[in-house]
């Protein structure tokens, strides 16, 4: 099961320990990343660099591997990294567990947030924050600071306090789930936020609120990777770079004009170009 699977993973990793350990200190640097699940290759050589203060958008048709890329960066061991490296601030993170990556500032807003019955949003956040603090050798956050933080961030995202006492994602509407993801992001203040289709399921008001939450986080020290199908979100969170992922590879990169072009013309021309 889970444990056995992890054992296998570790042996695999051991074999390739002669790899590079350091790289230039871009916030995120991905080199020739290949990943597969159940023996099936999904990512087929991704190269991507994201610098501090930048916003990147990753677009691409369904099934092209966007969520897989996000999961692999976050360390999901369902996916096996068969080649390539991921560096975070110059450090190779292949040996880091998902929680260690989180402690280093990686945040993933899930395309499909997971339900945890009986665990309230507040309790979950309290645990997450204190675990990250523990990893940094800090004491638990005092209750009154925690309360203040929750108040501040829930106001930012226009989240009702009652909502915070509900079981995590259980019975949440699609929009509520996504807003809750961004709330968590705001609480955890990550260095690198990856937002996987955070716009889907949001109405226009919610979209504005979520975008506002993301924009608040943006600073010269942080980076945001926005995965989306639509150009809509990009009107609110303006990307510095746009990449098109198709069939496990980044087939085109450009600026925000590329997003507009995709919106207009669809993905077919990209597919054709890629086929050539």
């Amino acid at each position, binding site marked *: *099961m*889970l*444990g*056995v699977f*992890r*054992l296998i*993973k*570790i042996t695999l990793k051991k074999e390739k320990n002669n790899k590079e350990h350091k790289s230039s200190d871009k916030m995120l640097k991905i080199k020739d990343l290949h990943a597969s699940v159940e023996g099936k290759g999904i990512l087929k050589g991704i190269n991507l660099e994201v610098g501090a203060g930048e916003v990147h958008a990753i677009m691409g048709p369904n099934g092209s591997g966007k969520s897989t890329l996000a999961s692999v960066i*976050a*360390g*999901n*061991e*369902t996916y096996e990294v068969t080649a390539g490296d991921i560096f975070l601030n110059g450090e190779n993170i292949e*040996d*880091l*567990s*998902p*929680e*260690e*990556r*989180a*402690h280093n500032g*990686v*945040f*993933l807003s*899930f395309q499909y*947030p*997971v*339900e*945890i*019955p*009986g*665990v309230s949003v507040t*309790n*979950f956040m309290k*645990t*997450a*924050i204190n*675990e*990250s603090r523990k*990893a940094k050798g800090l004491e638990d956050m005092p209750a009154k600071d925690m309360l203040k933080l929750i108040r501040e961030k829930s106001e930012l995202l226009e989240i009702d306090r009652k909502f915070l006492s509900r*079981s*995590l994602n259980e019975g949440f509407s699609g929009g509520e789930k996504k807003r809750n993801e961004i709330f*968590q992001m705001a609480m*955890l203040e990550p260095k690198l936020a990856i937002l996987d289709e955070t716009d889907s399921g949001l109405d226009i008001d919610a979209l504005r609120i979520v975008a506002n939450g993301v924009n608040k986080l943006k600073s010269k020290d942080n980076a945001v990777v926005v995965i989306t199908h639509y150009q809509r979100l990009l009107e609110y969170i303006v990307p510095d770079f746009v990449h098109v992922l198709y069939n496990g590879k980044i087939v085109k990169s450009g600026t925000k004009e590329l997003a507009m072009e995709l919106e207009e013309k669809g993905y077919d021309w990209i597919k054709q170009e890629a086929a050539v």
Partner: protein
Amino acid sequence: MAYTEEELKKELETKEYEYGFYTDIESDTFPIGLSEDIVRAISKKKNEPKWMTDWRVEAYRVWEKMEEPEWANVHYQKPDFQAISYYSAPKKADPNKKLEDVDPELLEMYKKLGISIDEQKKLQNVAVDIVVDSVSVATTFKKTLAEKGIIFMPISEAIQEHPELVRKYMGTVVPTTDNFYAALNSAVFTDGSFCYIPKGVRCPMELSTYFRINQAGTGQFERTLVVADEESYVSYLEGCTAPSRDENQLHAAVVELIAMDDAEIKYSTVQNWFPGNKEGKGGVYNFVTKRALCEKNAKVSWTQVETGSAVTWKYPSCILKGDNSIGEFYSIAVTNNYQQADTGTKMIHLGKNTRSTIISKGISAGKSQNSYRGLVQVSSRADNARNFSQCDSLLMGNECGAHTFPYIEVKNKSAMIEHEATTSKIGEEQIFYCNQRGIDTEKAIALIVNGFSKEVLNKLPMEFAVEAQKLLEISLEGSVG
């Protein structure tokens, strides 16, 4: 570093039973073995009136003819009743107990248990009656309670001081002939708690008894009797621990609750007797009979958090005799390593408009077996009876088992019974989601288990909910699947 199953296992193995220490107190222990003479000797030692002695002897004679039950879904080496000592009193126990008089070694022991009386005193709202092995050693808050007319004392004292009450109610809910262990308990019980709440009185604090098996080779047979007179209210909590020992120790308690018209009793149990070591050696056999009688408009709630014992056999029940009476059962049972638990409830609907709720959460890990066994019975006269039952099991790892045996017997057409049960495991997606938020796998499991158990944890008195939550974490540490 990723967290492998191997690592987790190792970690579990290094976690010894937190309360596994042995306090060296001089104690006054009977020779091993059971006979009518021993029964009489226990009674004599306690200076009991004749009616009590006769009651014990009668129970002993019934027990002698009974056979140990086989039907529970547990397997264990039957205790040898002739190899147990039936009386063990810390020698320095003093009848005129004041805190200052308590053996410092005992106090030290309570401290290790995290229930030092000093601390308890500060815990304003809790009155504690502590039973170590077989004799109740210290009771706090007696005076505050006395002002309200509430009687809360060791049952041995109650037999001396309030014989009429004890005699009137003892054995009326659980007769001596009820079952093998109840009969045994009736014959040899050494102490326990007695509680009487007078008519119309709301007990202003949580009453609490702490049981602990200390002496090697002793069985603990405590007897608890709670009588809530008309329109009264009481919340009662019992907690149990035993030091770790190799041989299995026997614990066969009887708890009787009587809720008269319009009365309410909340009875909560946190049980973490020594569960045995990781090879399944040692641990406590916990064979308990708990039953409540509900008169008109009365309400009884049983809440239990069971994390300990090698073998548990326990079905806190409600006899809903009075019209409009209510029975509730909220249970979390956690088993790990080689533990076996067979627990559940019986809701016997006799009166009209009676209602019962059963929420049972079973969590099995390691090589353990966890069974829910319940009975909902609606008699033909019990018009408009309602029952809702929910039994959920969570399995962790692939060497444990979860079993559900809900019996439902209905003889009245106006009954409404709903029963639901589910079995599931912790999802890998759930764990990854937590990991991604910086929560490691072990903590993630604790969080998910707590969420799973929340409905029940919420029913515990505040002071103990946090403790129970910790206990769940301790019992499941390192048992990822």
